[in-house]
């Protein structure tokens, strides 16, 4: 029998009867066997969690892995290792693969290849066949195979009619549509936020409006269709306001934000460092503030990593030639922790990382109590550390945080 003993951890689980108390947790063969004080367990692997918190394992709502087709960016094994290092026991896999996850066979492939991993992988199926934005993909078949939601990944659905039909069709079997909101016509070939910074850099800008006009469109469609709709990695103050108002009206809208959009703004681009090149682009300080306010008042339900690993060949280039994205699974928590400071309690953070992501995807939420399967993340918000390139588990070393002192560290995940 495999035994793990977590010692002196503060229980950070809003649903647990032991919430807020310092406890030992004994796990036997993946089940929480005991929850108490000063538990003795001979032969158990011990984790000293003094001063740390234990919460239900975190679920990332937005992960890019290169399997199938782009395994040199990330494969399932390296993704699982990076996820564990970053505190995630579940990853929502975006269909930005080659081929895209647009039919049952790709969903089945992901499910079968990830069954034995130390992380659960929830594939998102494409909205459109081949992710081309034209015809609806076989969403129901993918749903039966285990697709948790539908999205065209980093390609916004530009055809309003297609988004309309996708929402209506998904309603027929309770499917969830994830919207990545960007109007391509307004974004043009710009790569950074439109603002003073883009002007000083001599770059065209992507106006906040490019996102907000699509958020407004998709809220209108969801209202018309009475659909559930989730927005991933929103980035502007206007989007937060639109979503806040939609929620007030009682629409079934949810949203997440990436941790890095909470901490970083477009002033970081002045170095032309392509590690800051992300989509949606880093916005202004005012947007960052509005995103934090939205996170606090519940407009934004969850925080995602938006993990986007790349080979150095795709990133160590002139800014405009470089690919979008940051390898973030291992830093999402400290980045979030540093962005919020003391403005959110540990329990609220757990809601954003563990509880709400599962509610959005319709997954069972594990509770820390005797008899439940152990699905846990142990973390310390106060611990400071430096991210070293050589210690990153992800294949993607594209991170602006390498060499930087971060605050907040994950000690372990248990699944």
């Amino acid at each position: 029998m495999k035994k793990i003993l977590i010692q002196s951890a503060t229980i950070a689980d809003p649903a647990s009867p032991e919430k807020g108390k310092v406890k030992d947790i004994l796990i036997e063969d993946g089940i929480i066997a005991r929850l108490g004080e000063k538990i003795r367990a001979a032969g158990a692997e011990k984790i000293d969690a003094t001063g740390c918190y234990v919460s239900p394992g975190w679920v990332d709502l937005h992960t890019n892995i290169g399997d199938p087709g782009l395994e040199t960016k990330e494969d399932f094994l390296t993704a699982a290792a990076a996820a564990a290092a970053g505190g995630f026991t579940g990853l929502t896999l975006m269909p930005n693969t080659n081929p895209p996850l647009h039919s049952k066979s790709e969903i089945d492939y992901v499910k079968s290849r990830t069954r034995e991993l130390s992380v659960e992988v929830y594939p998102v199926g494409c909205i459109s066949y081949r992710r081309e934005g034209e015809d609806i993909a076989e969403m129901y078949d993918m749903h039966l195979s285990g697709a948790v939601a539908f999205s065209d990944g980093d390609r916004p659905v530009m055809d309003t009619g297609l988004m309309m039909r996708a929402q209506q069709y998904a309603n027929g079997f309770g499917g969830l549509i994830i919207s990545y909101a960007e109007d391509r016509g307004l974004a043009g070939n710009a790569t950074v936020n439109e603002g003073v910074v883009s002007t000083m850099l001599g770059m065209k800008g992507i106006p906040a409006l490019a996102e907000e006009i699509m958020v407004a469109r998709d809220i209108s469609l969801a209202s018309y269709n009475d659909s559930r709709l989730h927005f991933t990695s929103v980035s502007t103050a206007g989007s937060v306001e639109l979503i806040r108002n939609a929620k007030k009206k009682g629409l079934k809208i949810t949203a997440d934000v990436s941790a890095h959009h909470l901490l970083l703004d477009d002033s970081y681009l002045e170095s032309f460092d392509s590690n800051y090149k992300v989509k949606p682009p880093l916005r202004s300080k005012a947007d960052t503030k509005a995103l934090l306010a939205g996170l606090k008042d519940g407009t934004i339900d969850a925080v995602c990593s938006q993990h986007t690993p790349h080979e150095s060949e795709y990133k160590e280039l002139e800014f405009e030639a470089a690919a979008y994205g940051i390898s973030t699974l291992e830093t999402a928590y400290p980045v979030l922790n540093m962005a919020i400071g003391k403005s959110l309690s540990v329990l609220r953070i757990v809601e954003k990382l563990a509880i709400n992501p599962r509610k959005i995807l319709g997954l069972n939420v594990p509770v820390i109590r005797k008899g439940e399967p152990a699905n846990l993340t142990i973390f310390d918000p106060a611990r400071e550390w430096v991210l070293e390139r050589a210690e990153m588990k992800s294949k993607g070393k594209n991170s602006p945080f390498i060499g930087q002192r971060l605050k907040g560290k994950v000690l372990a995940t248990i699944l």
Partner: protein
Amino acid sequence: MSKQLSTRNLLGIKDLTEGDIQLIFETADNFKEVINRPIKKVPSLRDVTVANVFFENSTRTRLSFELAQKRLSADVINFSASSSSVSKGETLVDTVKNILAMKVDMIVMRHPYPGAGVFLSRHIQANIINAGDGAHEHPTQALLDAFSIREKMGDVSGKKVVIVGDILHSRVALSNILCLRKLGAEVMVCGPTTLMPRYIGELGVRVEHNLRKALEWCDIANMLRIQLERQDIKYFPSLREYTMMYGLNRALLDSLGKTITIMHPGPINRGVEITSDVADSEHSIILEQVENGVAIRMAAMYLLAQKD
């Protein structure tokens, strides 16, 4: 040489102090005198090898740099490639490192991507001069423009300069704004609303969309070339309509009731942004700009070569 630049690369006006700009001007004064001598050559950069690395077409900027290098007795090599062939194969860093491996001391680079020079400076030791990076900066152009204003008007400070044309796609506009502001000039930008960056006003410039009003305000008008090749989509319906709204012609100039100085970074689209009778008029300093370009580039390279 006692005075030195505060920087070892000339990547943008952004990085220069006012003192740097004045030092470049003073040095250029000397070199301008040199290039008007019967023997135009000085040994200042003997044994210095400069590579002109151009990833984008350019005739006159490269010619001006090359002439400046030859007047300084530098050894010169030229490399040009279209950025498309580079993006397919060799990276920018590889290309430049290969050139540097042949013992080159200084790189003059033009590149279609903003910040390419800044990026390159993190990877190589040689001095870099940015000869234009996308719509970001073109520092030697801004310096020669300000130098030409100083020569014509005695001083740059307090002068009113309007930059007319495609501000969105122009590196000349951004570098000029930064340079003129550092030297105490007042700057206005004027052009079609679709070619005006939304936040340009926050750089401390006035924004005007009516050419007549802009000309009535200014002492100097810098007429930018309309660069259709830089526009991926249509920002205005036709050149004809652009000329109707923003073309400078003699009748307009004469109706102002005052004299203004006319500049243009070249090459001129005669009859588009400026008519021939304006370009060739007594108020135009377009050819002086070209001459000063050589002196300014000599000064910039000479001063950078003093920095290790």
